[in-house]
């Protein structure tokens, strides 16, 4: 174990240390304030509640590390979920095919973002803003504006079932975390994300095919949004065309709270998960304390600003 710890780079420890410290403090405070907070049931609840946003945020991490932004993930989640719902409910296709269509739609939307950015020369903000609108519109078109149900029993289990007492949404989140961690840490594309985000021109001049990597990056973000879409609909037991509305904001917030820099080149998968957990624990705790949902939004806004401010200060000193 100590050898693993020894190999962690100081820089990674630094960028992970801050948000992790914040999460621990937050949990301690919540445990003191509410007797209900620290229980397996409640903690699993937090896990289930953040699962969708966490998966979106992991995909978003690729984009933000590479110096871009993906505003479309919430809508792409909705579109992927609706395509999945249409395929299984309306077209009556077998589950694996419906799953492939749903997740594939997410990836395709991401690829389109990538093409708009590389071939179309659009800034990522604009390209994905356009997709935010278009994907939501397509979800409404495909569904006719109404929820599609009932979804097959097998997929509803994903939303409710357990694996060795661990809720399946949590299991799926952990699997996606490991995948995102591996991509960022050990794949060619992952290493390119840091290089492109840190200095795109230097990366290009070092012989990295920046356009191709961007296509891969945005496709991955769409793919993660597609998977999040399936999970979202599974939890709802119904395919809702409004699913994931404004979720992109939570996803971006989670990535940034987790220590990534919007100017690119910095960020980790574990940091993003911690960011999503901070948001989740905060919401859960405020609910337990009976804080009105209006005030919750105010508190969460303050936490986002505070988290990034302390992170910036910490980096400057470090």
């Amino acid at each position, binding site marked *: 174990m100590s050898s693993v710890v020894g190999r962690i780079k100081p*820089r990674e420890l630094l960028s992970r240390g801050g948000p992790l410290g914040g999460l621990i403090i937050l949990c301690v405070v919540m445990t003191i304030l509410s007797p209900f907070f620290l229980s397996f049931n409640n903690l699993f609840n937090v896990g289930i509640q953040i699962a969708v946003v966490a998966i979106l945020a992991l995909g978003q991490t690729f984009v933000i590390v590479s110096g871009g932004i993906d505003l479309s993930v919430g809508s792409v989640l909705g579109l992927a979920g609706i395509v999945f719902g249409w395929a299984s409910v309306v077209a009556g296709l077998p589950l694996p095919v419906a799953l492939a269509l749903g997740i594939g739609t997410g990836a395709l939307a991401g690829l389109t973002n990538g093409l708009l950015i590389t071939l179309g020369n659009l800034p990522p903000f604009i390209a994905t803003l356009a997709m935010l609108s278009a994907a939501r519109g397509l979800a409404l078109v495909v569904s006719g504006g109404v929820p599609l149900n009932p979804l097959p029993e097998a997929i509803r289990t994903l939303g409710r079932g357990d694996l060795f007492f661990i809720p399946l949404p949590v299991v799926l989140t952990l699997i996606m975390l490991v995948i995102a961690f591996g991509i960022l840490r050990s794949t060619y594309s992952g290493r390119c994300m840091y*290089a492109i985000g840190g*200095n795109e021109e*230097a990366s290009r001049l070092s*012989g990295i095919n920046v356009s191709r990597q961007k296509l891969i990056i945005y496709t991955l973000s769409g793919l993660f949004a597609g998977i999040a879409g399936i999970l979202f609909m599974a939890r709802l037991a119904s395919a809702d065309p409004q699913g994931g509305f404004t979720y992109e904001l939570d996803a971006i917030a989670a990535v940034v709270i987790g220590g990534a820099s919007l100017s690119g*080149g910095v960020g980790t998968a574990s940091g993003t998960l911690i960011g999503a957990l901070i948001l989740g624990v905060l919401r859960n705790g405020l609910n337990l304390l009976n804080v009105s949902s209006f005030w919750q939004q105010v508190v969460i806004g303050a936490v986002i600003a505070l988290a990034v401010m302390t992170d910036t200060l910490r980096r400057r000193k470090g």
Partner: protein
Amino acid sequence: MEMRGITKRFPGVMALDEVDFELEKGEVHVILGENGAGKSTLIKMLSGAYQPDEGEILLDDEPVSISSATVAQELGISTIYQEFNLVPQLTTAENIFLGRQPRRFGLVNRRKMGEEARRILERMKVRVDANALVSNLGIPQRQMVEIAKALSLDARILVMDEPTASLSGQEVERLFEIIRGLKEEEVSMIFISHHLEEVAEIGDRVTVLRDGKVVDRVPASTNRSEFVRMMVGRPIEDQFPRQQPETGEVLLEVNNLSQKGILEDASFQVRAGEVVGMAGIVGAGRTELARAIFGVDPVDSGEVWVEGRRMKLGNPREAKRRGMGFVTEDRQGQGIVPPLSVEENLSLASLGLNTSVGLVNRREQRKRARKMIEDLNIRTPSPEQEIRYLSGGNQQKVVIGKWLLANSRVLIMDEPTRGIDVGAKVEIYELMNELTKNGAGILMISSDLPEVLGMSDRILVMSEGRITGELSVDGATQENVMELATQGSEAAVE
């Protein structure tokens, strides 16, 4: 102006240690020192960016506290930094008066602003249109605007941090004329430069800093090797240690490369073991030629052959695959990836070589990077250190190392020692010796004439997009290089 016992500590570093400095009226006082010697820290005390931990600053024998840039301006101290602080989207006049635009009834008086800007530019004898957008100006012209901005403040003390770094011969001369004019108006100037030959020409006195301490204060007429000894703390026998190895086969052959309005019929060869120097004034098309060869920018016509085989142009990946490496002029903007570690920066060009089925072998990558850090004597606390915290010389070694790890045999080095201190320069030169001895070929673009004459085996001179001549190193002098460099051209400023 006088600074007494100035001390400044940063976490883990003593940046300045009881530094005394004085500046007389109408004096040009040069500060010399290697990177990290404390020059920038010292002048940032004057511009209000830093406050001293200990010591005091006296202006006309009165102690002052320069707590911000605004205070510095009010005291009549203005600073010209080496990095450009201009807003490209605004005009020259707007930049000169940024934040202090002449106003009438609360609105900017554009006519008055334009007139005043023109007056200042005329006084400098610089032909820059006051209404031109800064984004349309060349780099040397921008530097001139930067100087005009400082002059518009009617400063009594003018601080210049490497103002000549991005200027070529004639523009430097123009700047020196301006400096001489200001001297007559009794403006005091602090001048920081790495170019020792400029020191005697423009300076009155020289203060040499090393490791945050004042080594000595001497007249500017002091002998150059004496300066070097003071700066590095050890004598450097030979500033340009070029040893010419045997030359081998042709590695790089460029035939009739043309790009409308930029390059005209450029042809030359680089052989194994050779350092081919490329001189010319700023804007002659040298960087553009390098970028065209490496496939960064498109060309209209022409061929590039690498090791006897024709190369497809217009793709840096292809150039890399064929064994070429490009050390760019703009190290911060195009060379390094600032937030990443030394190790990751070293591995940037060889990422593909360490990858199989999409997975990077990071252990192998780390091993190679560590070996390169050792081989090139890159001074970093650890391979994991973020590269932006390294000195310019060590960053440059990382950029060169990046290409060596990608097995490059033909290196194009554009201003390889710009902004690098004397000690590190010699190390880069020794590295070039080592590389050519092992069969590499180097095309070295440089605006530093002594460097071109000292390190090249052959010298190509460019002017207005054409190669105007080739000189053997024995026959070349500063004069005949400059003659070729200005053939059929006027200075970029004019």
